């Protein structure tokens, strides 16, 4: 087990390093470079651009820039955010991380509803309940979530003259009614995946010999479904949770923009229109790091909960 963890850890670090390098190259080969925004401003002459390049260290050779950047990034120094009054990027992102964590965590919690839904559908296979769940999953996979969000906002605004905007600052109840709709939308794709997955997994498990044996031994129905079926069909959900981190983060960019939720998704979209490459680069790396950590933890948990899997 220890060897497996060390191996996966080294792999993850290598992966992170590669993606960091690629991201750096990506933002530096941008047409016009990181100072592209200034080219569009007719009032800024070439002399001023040269001065700006010098001040930001952009006139140095690429490899010097790269190592300086790498060293700084390892110390969590992502530079200054020019679109946020030169505040340190870390500081800007730090204030936005909390809301996104709330939204993401809430979405995961809601998505876990897919687990009982999947079990329910598997137990009532082919019957009305199963079909209802199935229609729900199909619709959930086909509807553009951001559009559904817009429609919900419109309906709420037209009927009860209220719609969720931002985080809500009047206590926990206010916070809850503000987070629930964006979190619901953000969770849809993960919930659908959980439902479909758990359903087919449970159907698989129900057909296993050991379940038949347990039933034949006369164990109570609930005992069998809890100890023999559920346990074995829930294991893969752990890995799925890790796999959905990138899509939750990407989805956050849309959901947060629509509901004006002050998280990193909205920050990303705003920084893109402000062409603040230092924030974009930092967010890309932070998003990737979170995903890698998520996948890593999911892998470990997977091996840990299921002794049948060999880790090599």
């Amino acid at each position, binding site marked *: 087990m220890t060897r497996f963890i060390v191996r996966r850890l080294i792999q993850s670090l290598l992966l992170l390093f590669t993606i960091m390098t690629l991201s750096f190259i990506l933002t530096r080969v941008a047409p016009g470079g990181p100072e592209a925004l200034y080219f569009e401003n007719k009032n800024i002459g070439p002399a001023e651009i040269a001065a700006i390049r010098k001040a930001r260290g952009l006139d140095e050779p690429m490899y010097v820039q790269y190592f300086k950047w790498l060293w700084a990034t390892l110390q969590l120094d992502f530079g200054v955010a020019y679109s946020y009054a030169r505040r340190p990027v870390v500081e800007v992102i730090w204030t936005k991380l909390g809301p996104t964590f709330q939204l993401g965590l809430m979405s995961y919690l809601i998505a876990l509803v897919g687990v009982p839904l999947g079990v329910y559908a598997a137990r009532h296979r082919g019957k009305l309940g199963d079909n209802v769940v199935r229609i729900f999953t199909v619709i959930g*996979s086909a509807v553009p979530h951001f559009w559904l969000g*817009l429609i919900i906002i419109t309906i709420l605004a037209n009927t009860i003259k209220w719609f969720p905007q931002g985080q809500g600052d009047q206590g926990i109840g206010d916070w809850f009614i503000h987070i629930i709709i964006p979190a619901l939308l953000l969770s849809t794709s993960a919930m659908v995946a959980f439902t479909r997955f758990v359903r087919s997994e449970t159907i698989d498990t129900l057909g296993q010999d050991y379940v038949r044996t347990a039933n034949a031994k006369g164990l109570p129905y609930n005992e069998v479904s809890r100890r023999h079926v559920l346990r074995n069909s829930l294991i893969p959900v752990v890995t799925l949770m890790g796999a959905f981190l*990138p899509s939750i983060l990407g989805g956050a960019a*849309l959901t947060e923009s629509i509901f004006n939720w002050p998280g990193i998704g909205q920050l990303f*979209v705003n920084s893109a229109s402000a062409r603040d490459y230092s924030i974009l680069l930092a967010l*890309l790396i932070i*998003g990737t790091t979170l995903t890698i950590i998520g996948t890593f933890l999911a892998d470990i948990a997977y091996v840990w909960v299921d002794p049948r899997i060999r880790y090599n």
Partner: protein
Amino acid sequence: MSQVSERTAPPVGPTPLSDKRRKSLSKGFFASAFERFLRDRVSLISMIIFVIIALLAICAPLLEKVIGFTRDEQDLLNSYAPPGTAGHILGADELGRDILIRLLWGGQVSLSVGFLVALISGIIGTLLGLLAGYFGGWVDDVVNAAYQIVANVPTLFLLIILGLYFKPDVLSLSITFGLLSWAGNARQIRGATLSLRSRDYIDAALVMGANNSRIMGIHLLPNLVSTILVVAAFDVVGAMLGEAGLSYLGYGISVPIPSWGNMIADGNGHLTDAPWLAIFPGVMIFITVLCIFLLADGLRDAFDPRLKEKG
């Protein structure tokens, strides 16, 4: 998968080397899968609806005459015309452009992006998955490294950054999108290849002296077609939804070329006073994606009837 049944087994003894094969009495794998597909009512209906939508989108230039407006024709006197007024069946936008004809043109864009992305990620994913599954070893490691990179970067973030570099058109957006979304294809094809390559007929081909490219191209690839098609169909779903989201944020297909995503973005500011601007393109995405999703589901069941049995 194997089409050689008892009836078609070659006679014992040296087989004459000839291209003529005895005609099989059983239906082929694809013919019977297609038959199963058509027998499923949901798949059939979604295919019909999808074909109608696709045909309407393709015929958009011809339908301009029928509808009476061209794609970018402005009718400023009737801006924000509600559906059914001033000759605009589905209403008009802020410049008085007809929503219906723009929806058809937008359908061309959205469908092209969906299918091009599926094609590109399908080709890359199939190639890499096949190589990784067949050769294993260091090839597998290299493919896995590339897979990890693509799978761990938030795609939408990356596409937004790329959208800053150039104004994407249908082709360039599809290429960048496709280059970032082959991970799922590669994993599925690799898995399918792994299970196929331990079959006896691959060993037989190896023993007969077939080289690697022949085994991959002639023996493995045809048996992977069903997997490739099903994954590609789900890719279309992902790409169409992705394009819509990206265009909504303003980093996908940009105006005046209409796509269903940027039409929703156009209607964004008028949700309460002119909701039809945003509702209709969303409904189009929903119906089209729903059909393709059901098609993909039906395709998978048709290729592997055991899945259907399972549910």
